[in-house]
């Protein structure tokens, strides 16, 4: 695509500014990535300073509304800057950066009151206020609207109590965008409200979660009567589910080309790690292992082909998009664990044990431990099967036992399933 003269001019100015102000990046070196979470505090402050430099030069929030500190320019301007910036070291604010300029920020811009936006968005763009999501709860996973964190009126304040989980980088962020239940007599989806919670407020405890692999990428937050005000409400009181839907759409990659990052494998290119492992296990000539290698490669390739087909079906548009997209998600949820198991089977001893520090050696094991992320996170396999069955194949919806009922009653009646 060729630039319009306007964009061309903008690009040229950006190029000059970048050359004069940012450090060039070595080819191969990542500009963004998961580095943020690995940085120490000092390093992270430096990244914030870099963000402020961009902001002050007018290169933060290029296509965000100008009344709230953005530049009010087009997507094309933003894309032009991004393309030029690829060769420079741009701010890496890790997970909090991703949520601030992604799901949280984009949702806030659409639902926040003018006062809220005026107060927070310029600071977000300047790198002074980083937002993370406080959405999932230990007791509400697939049933996302089933949260039980509560915000209770106390004079002209709200007191928030509950716990949130699976937050990335909460310890580096400034605010949590937090969903709480404000009306227990309304049905599940209708008594929810979003709040901006300062993460250094009294009553907030942030604890890293040690994961199955031993790493700690996520945090859990405990809120104990955390005080916020009416001006911290994002959107309208008791209408938080509308806001949540925007958030989920952005999070699920609305507009992105390949939201699931499925591998697109060439038919002739078997994963070299797989071939190496098979040979290292001395099983290259073992017909049973060869069958397994072929199964894995066939599934790898088939998932790529499925991606192309789903894209085609989405374009054809005669079936509901969310249902069709579930094929992709379910394929990941089903095949990732299966693949990881088969790899261990090929390796037999290898993959179960390795010498301390041998990263290649532990790869099969780590892949195995991570293999169910897609089966569970972001809508479990079971949720995807419901979606395919109901939305694509036209089967009846699951009978509902919580719709329309006051949420208070839902919580009570769930306990009665074993007594009736």
């Amino acid at each position, binding site marked *: 695509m060729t630039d319009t003269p306007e964009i061309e001019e903008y690009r040229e100015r950006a190029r000059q500014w970048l050359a004069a102000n940012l450090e060039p990046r070595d080819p191969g070196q990542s500009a963004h990535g998961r580095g943020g979470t690995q940085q120490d505090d000092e390093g992270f402050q430096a990244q914030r300073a870099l963000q402020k430099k961009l902001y002050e030069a007018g290169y933060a929030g290029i296509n965000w509304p100008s009344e709230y500190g953005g530049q009010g320019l087009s997507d094309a301007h933003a894309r032009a800057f991004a393309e030029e910036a690829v060769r420079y070291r741009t701010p890496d604010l890790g997970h909090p950066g991703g949520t601030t300029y992604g799901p949280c920020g984009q949702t806030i811009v659409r639902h926040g009151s003018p006062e809220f936006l005026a107060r927070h968005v310029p600071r977000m763009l300047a790198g002074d206020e980083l937002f993370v999501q406080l959405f999932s709860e230990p007791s509400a996973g697939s049933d996302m609207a089933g949260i039980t964190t509560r915000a209770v009126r106390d004079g002209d304040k709200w007191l928030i109590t509950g716990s949130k989980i699976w937050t990335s980088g909460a310890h580096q962020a400034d605010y949590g965008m937090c969903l709480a239940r404000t009306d227990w007599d309304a049905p599940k989806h209708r008594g929810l409200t979003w709040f901006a919670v300062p993460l250094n407020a009294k009553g907030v405890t942030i604890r890293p979660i040690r994961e199955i692999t031993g790493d700690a990428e996520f945090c859990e937050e405990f809120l104990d009567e955390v005080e916020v005000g009416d001006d911290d409400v994002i959107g309208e009181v008791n209408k938080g589910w509308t806001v949540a839907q925007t958030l989920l759409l952005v999070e699920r990659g609305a507009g992105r080309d390949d939201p699931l990052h499925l591998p697109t494998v060439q*038919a002739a290119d078997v994963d070299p790690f797989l071939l190496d492992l098979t040979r290292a296990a001395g099983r290259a000539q073992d017909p049973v292992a060869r069958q397994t290698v072929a199964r894995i490669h*066939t599934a790898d390739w*088939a998932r790529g082909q*499925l991606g192309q087909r789903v894209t085609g079906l989405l374009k054809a548009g005669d079936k509901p998009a969310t249902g069709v997209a579930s094929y992709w998600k379910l394929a990941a949820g089903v095949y990732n664990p299966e693949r990881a198991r088969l790899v261990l089977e090929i390796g037999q001893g290898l993959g179960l044990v390795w010498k301390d520090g041998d990263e290649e050696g532990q790869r099969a094991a780590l892949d195995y431990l991570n293999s169910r992320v897609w089966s569970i996170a972001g809508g479990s396999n079971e949720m995807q099967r419901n979606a395919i069955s109901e939305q694509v194949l036209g089967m*009846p919806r699951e009978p509902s036992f919580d719709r329309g009922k006051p949420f208070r009653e839902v919580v009570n009646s769930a306990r009665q399933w074993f007594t009736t």
Partner: protein
Amino acid sequence: MDPDLSPDQRLLRETTERFIEANLPLARLRELIDAGDEVDPSYRRDGAELGWFAFLAPESLGGGSVSGDGVLDAVVLAELRGRYLQPGAFIDTNLAVATLAREGSEEQRTKVVPTLISGEAAVAWAVADATGDWSGSSGVGCEPTRGGYRLTGRKGLVVEARSAQWLLVTAVAPDGLTQFLLPTATPGVTVEAMTSLDLSRRLCEVRFDDVEVDGSALVGTPGAAATAVDAQLLLAGVLAAAETVGAMQYLFDLTVQYCKDRVAFGRPIGSFQAIKHQLADTSLALEMSHAVATGAAREAQREGRGAAHAASMAKAFVGDAAVELAHKCWQLFGGISYTWEHDFHLYLRRLTTDASLYGSPTWHRERLCQLAGL
């Protein structure tokens, strides 16, 4: 069905579907099965007029495709033929046309190929032995004689050899794989139609009792047929996978409808979550089967370096998925699946047989490893 079909291909599909529904719908096929009859040769000739055997031949020999992509056109037909469980040597005749057009003798190219394209004659490919080795390297041997060659041995799982006029025989000669085209009626050749799990096609055993042929029966260079056999296996894999996917889709549609209609415990059985999830898993496998069948066809069309890999992967994936789908549907239909009059068993039989014809999933997985240099 491939959502990316061109308008021409959609037209081809509609025309052929109308043709099948008029000439050999399932009800008519059942009559043939019950009577032990085969379809009249006019069926093949009339199908040929729609281009069924022309897509893989050059225009100079009377061939030509609808979309310019002959393989993709043939795949459109194959899927429909599978959907309606059509009999006949569609796959073998097409791959024979491709091989003969490429490396047949002048006589084979100009005399035989046109009769194949017109549907006047059909070819059955005798390549597998009775135990399902489709490499061509077992079953029938040939040795040079003074005037030509002598063929001895037997081939199994030859599709529709009884109604074919020609056999394309892949034999082992002292210097390597060698192919022959000979009339089914050649002295010493015995074609026996076997009883089969599949009721929609005739699978045959072909015996060669010291069959003497002269050099004119040769296809290509003696001892050097490996490349042609590879190309035939590739085409067979692509077309057979497409046929299977067609039959899977029909059976699945039938099952989905049944789950909406059938009531138990006061609700359509499709409202039970366990049934819904079985349907969803099956639907995923079916969509992936469509995807790999289409993917392999495109690789074959563009003759990519992964074309043979893709054909073997498609055949293996679809073969497993087909049997699994048939069993899932079987369970969902319940008691009614046990009746002869319900169409289910025709699909079960065809899909199960499809999985093994032109190489079982296991056979193709091993082949894939060889192609990948493992």
